[in-house]
């Protein structure tokens, strides 16, 4: 025999609440409403609606107003809502409503009687939901970067692998991986603090999220490395995206009370038939290094030869690290003389790698590898220490107190936050007069990093150091910078000196630099002087100093000491 409708109601409503799959309370309310043929089902709690079905926005407000009095009928659009209320503990109530069809007394009684069970079921649902949420949160945390909220390496790899597995159906849309690295991020962290660094990373993450399409994936791999995985209808689409990102990141950002000029370098790799997620990311990473090598703030596309180059670079970097540890890095000095008199005025310190198998290597064989790693700072400072120590020793010799030394500093070293402190300690230990010490920096690094290195240069000025602008004429120096910074020497690039007497343009440029130096009250030093004719022309145009094979090759400190100061130096002071 069929049980009464009311008993059936009891069974189905309780079942709706005792589901072990509570995706959400709304589904439960649907089941309850469906089981009793109701249009409305809602849970109200202390003046707010936890969940409801069947009610429009304005009707929800009206129901909430009336909820405390639990009316049996309420007028709503479309008719009379016949209501049945069940207390669920505290101020929580379950409302079931049928339009124009009143609940029988038996239905209402049963619903009230099952209220306690519903309350317990609801609590159980909430507990399960909370547990699931906790599990979801844990899973989210394990797969997302807490700073930016972006997918982390784990999720990036999972997603990329999934995309690659689905690849056959998407042949017309190549998968592209963009590896994005924030240029000079270490300097931002060191110079402005980690909070500023974090703010920059969040800023970049927002730019990336805005630049990509909805179906693309943006992730943060680690530190200042981001990834974008995109599918576009053509390879040009990925290039356009990279260009847009480069442009957007380049816009100045106000951080830590200063306007930060920054950029990002991007490597792009397109997925081939056999590529894995890890390979793609590695390849994009290599292309990113190429973009950096080409001058930062740009993108480069992966080519197979980059893998070989990367391997060679890694090997070189490893060997160079070993060389630094094993003291294979040597300081050589090249004399700088006064052209008019031929008198020695000082030296330029130059680095050499005394390679155990390949012999003495000049900087072009290893300096770019050193600049891409953190080794350049160690190398620059080692050369500086050795050179200043030697020159300080010679300055104490009678008649040589005017000797000056200029030592090269790379852009990366110049951007190091503690450079001033480290130089100060070396100046003190050598005892050299800082006024006789010049730091040679290239014209391009001065201009590129003007924003970033302003504070450092000010610190150097406070130490009494001056700048020598290397390869002057090859970059685009602003005269304003030359006036603002403690520039003491302008070095005429040897490319202009080489063709003096043969190329009138070079002669004009060399003359202009000499005039400019004079106007600024600094000395001009011609590099690469090899012949008497070049010397004569430089003398004629008023260039004060020169260096080059005409005056002496770069030689180890000990050799220089023997050649120039051998007779004067007391035996006990020789190193």
């Amino acid at each position, binding site marked *: *025999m*069929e*049980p009464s*409708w009311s008993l*059936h109601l009891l*069974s*189905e*409503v*309780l*079942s*709706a609440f*005792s*589901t072990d*799959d509570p995706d959400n309370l*709304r*589904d439960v309310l*649907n*089941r309850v*409403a*469906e*089981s*009793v*043929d*109701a*249009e*409305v*089902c809602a849970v109200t709690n202390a003046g707010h609606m936890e969940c409801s*079905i*069947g*009610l*429009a926005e304005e*009707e929800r407000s009206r129901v909430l107003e009336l909820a405390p009095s639990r009316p049996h009928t309420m007028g709503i*659009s*479309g008719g009379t809502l016949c209501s049945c209320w069940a207390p669920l503990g505290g101020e929580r109530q379950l409302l079931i409503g*049928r*339009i124009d*069809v009143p609940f029988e007394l038996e239905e209402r009684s049963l619903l009230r009687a099952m209220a306690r069970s519903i309350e317990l079921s609801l609590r159980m649902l909430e507990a399960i939901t909370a547990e699931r949420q906790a599990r979801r949160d844990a899973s989210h945390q394990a797969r997302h970067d807490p700073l930016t909220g972006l997918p982390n390496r784990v999720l990036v790899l999972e997603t990329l692998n999934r995309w690659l597995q689905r690849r056959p159906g998407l042949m017309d849309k190549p998968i592209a991986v963009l590896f994005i690295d924030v240029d000079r991020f270490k300097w931002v962290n060191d110079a402005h603090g980690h909070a500023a660094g974090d703010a920059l990373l969040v800023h970049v993450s927002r730019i990336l999220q805005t630049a990509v399409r909805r179906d693309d994936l943006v992730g943060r791999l680690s530190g200042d490395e981001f990834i974008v995985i995109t599918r576009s209808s053509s390879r040009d689409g990925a290039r356009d995206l990279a260009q847009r990102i480069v442009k957007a990141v380049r816009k100045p950002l106000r951080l830590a009370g200063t306007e930060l000029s920054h950029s990002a370098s991007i490597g792009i790799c397109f997925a081939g038939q056999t590529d894995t997620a890890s390979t793609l990311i590695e390849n994009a990473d290599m292309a990113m290094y190429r973009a950096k090598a080409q001058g930062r703030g740009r993108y480069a596309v992966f080519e197979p030869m980059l893998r070989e180059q990367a391997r060679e670079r890694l090997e070189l970097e490893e060997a160079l690290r070993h060389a630094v540890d094993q003291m294979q890095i040597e300081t050589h000095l090249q004399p700088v003389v006064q052209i008019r008199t031929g008198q020695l005025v000082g030296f330029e310190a130059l680095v050499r790698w005394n390679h155990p198998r390949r012999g003495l290597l000049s900087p072009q064989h290893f300096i770019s590898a050193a600049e891409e790693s953190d080794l350049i700072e160690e190398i620059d400072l080692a050369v500086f220490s050795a050179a200043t120590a030697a020159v300080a020793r010679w300055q104490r010799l009678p008649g040589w107190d005017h000797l000056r030394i200029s030592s090269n500093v790379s852009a990366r070293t110049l951007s190091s936050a503690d450079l001033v402190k480290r130089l100060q300690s070396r100046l003190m230990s050598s005892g050299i007069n800082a006024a006789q010490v010049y730091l040679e920096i290239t014209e391009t690094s001065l201009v590129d990093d003007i924003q970033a290195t302003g504070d450092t240069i000010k610190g150097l000025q406070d130490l009494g150091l001056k700048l020598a602008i290397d390869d002057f004429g090859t970059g685009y120096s602003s005269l304003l910078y030359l006036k603002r910074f403690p520039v003491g020497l302008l070095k005429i690039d040897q490319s202009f000196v080489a063709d003096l007497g043969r190329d009138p343009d070079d002669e004009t440029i060399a003359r202009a630099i000499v005039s400019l130096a004079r106007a600024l009250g600094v000395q001009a030093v011609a590099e690469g002087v090899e012949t008497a004719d070049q010397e004569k022309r430089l003398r004629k145009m008023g260039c004060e100093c020169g260096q080059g094979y005409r005056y002496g090759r770069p030689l180890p400190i000990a050799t220089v000491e023997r050649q120039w100061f051998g007779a004067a130096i007391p035996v006990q002071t020789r190193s």
Partner: protein
Amino acid sequence: MADPLANQPTWVKVGSSTERDTLSALEEALRAMQPLHPPKLLVVFASPLHDFGRLAEHLQAAMPESTVIGCSSAGEIAGSGALRQGLVLWALGGSAITVCSGWGEADQQGLRGAAADAAACLNQIERRRHTVLLLLSDGLAGNQMDVVRGAYDIAHHDVPLVGGCAGDDLAMRRTRQLHGTRVLSNAVVAAAISSDHPLGVGVSHGWTPLSAPMLVTDSRGTRLERLDDQPALDVYCHFFDLDEAVRHDATAFATFAETHPIGIRRRDRIEMRHITGRDLENRTLLMVAEVPQGGLAFLTQGDVGSVLAAAATSTEEAINALGGREPVGLLLFDCVSRRSVFGEEGAQDETERISACSGGVPMAGFYTYGEIARTSGSGGFHNQTLVTLAIG
């Protein structure tokens, strides 16, 4: 030649074709509707054998001012009777009518979210006195109760829902939904229809309980696990004393189940659920939509007479809801299983009965994998049922 119906407040026209070539079929169906003033809404039901991309593109191009929705079917209904592998167009127009359409995909958000997206067109329509939401969903995309629930989230209690689940001529592989020139699967498309005149919905199935009521003791999603604490498949096979051959042959079982659905007790009616298959290992019945745990279920049977009679009941119910106004057209959603019960001859008999009840007004529809009709309560998913929408 000017369309004589163009100035009517509401009008319906129907065209159909059994041509195999999609463009030829479309041309023939459109020709049958001439002269045709641009309708507000154009609904197309077509066999999955047709090229839906070309169909959508050419139909929208032919009627650029009209809202176009549609789906693939498991048979079509036209004024001339039941079709197989055909194409039918149903055009609704008139100054009293406004239409707005929407669509949603279930891939990321499930059917409930897809239906809610599609139903959001209700928020844009210029509302007249009477409104219904017409829904066409992918009948192979999961628990179809979620289509009604998602649409109800937007429509609430004051907008009736009506519609059907797209089919694929019982191949059970893939159905299509069409919105404008967009062809979708695993999706829901919708058209909100608002009118100054009444819109009536009728629902009837004609199936009757055979078994005593049984408590649904375990049901998960579309899997009916246990009835009265016994494996549902065992209860079903035992009650109908199924031959071993039928029990173990998937096709034979599905054919038998088509005419022996599960009934669910509701307050004033029995709601039907179609059985799509069985899981021999777990002894469960696979349903097209959920059978609520805790509810009362029946094993049912329909005979040709009662099922055919339901056609008239559904039509009369829809026309009665017009409040005395004569219908100008009908849109029909007829379960594909009903056709199996009464066969080809009965299918023609059914359309003739519907036509007779409605005074021969233009009508079209399709054989569905599930029917949607919600006029009261919040549920409204049906099987083995004829749902009728009458335009007043």
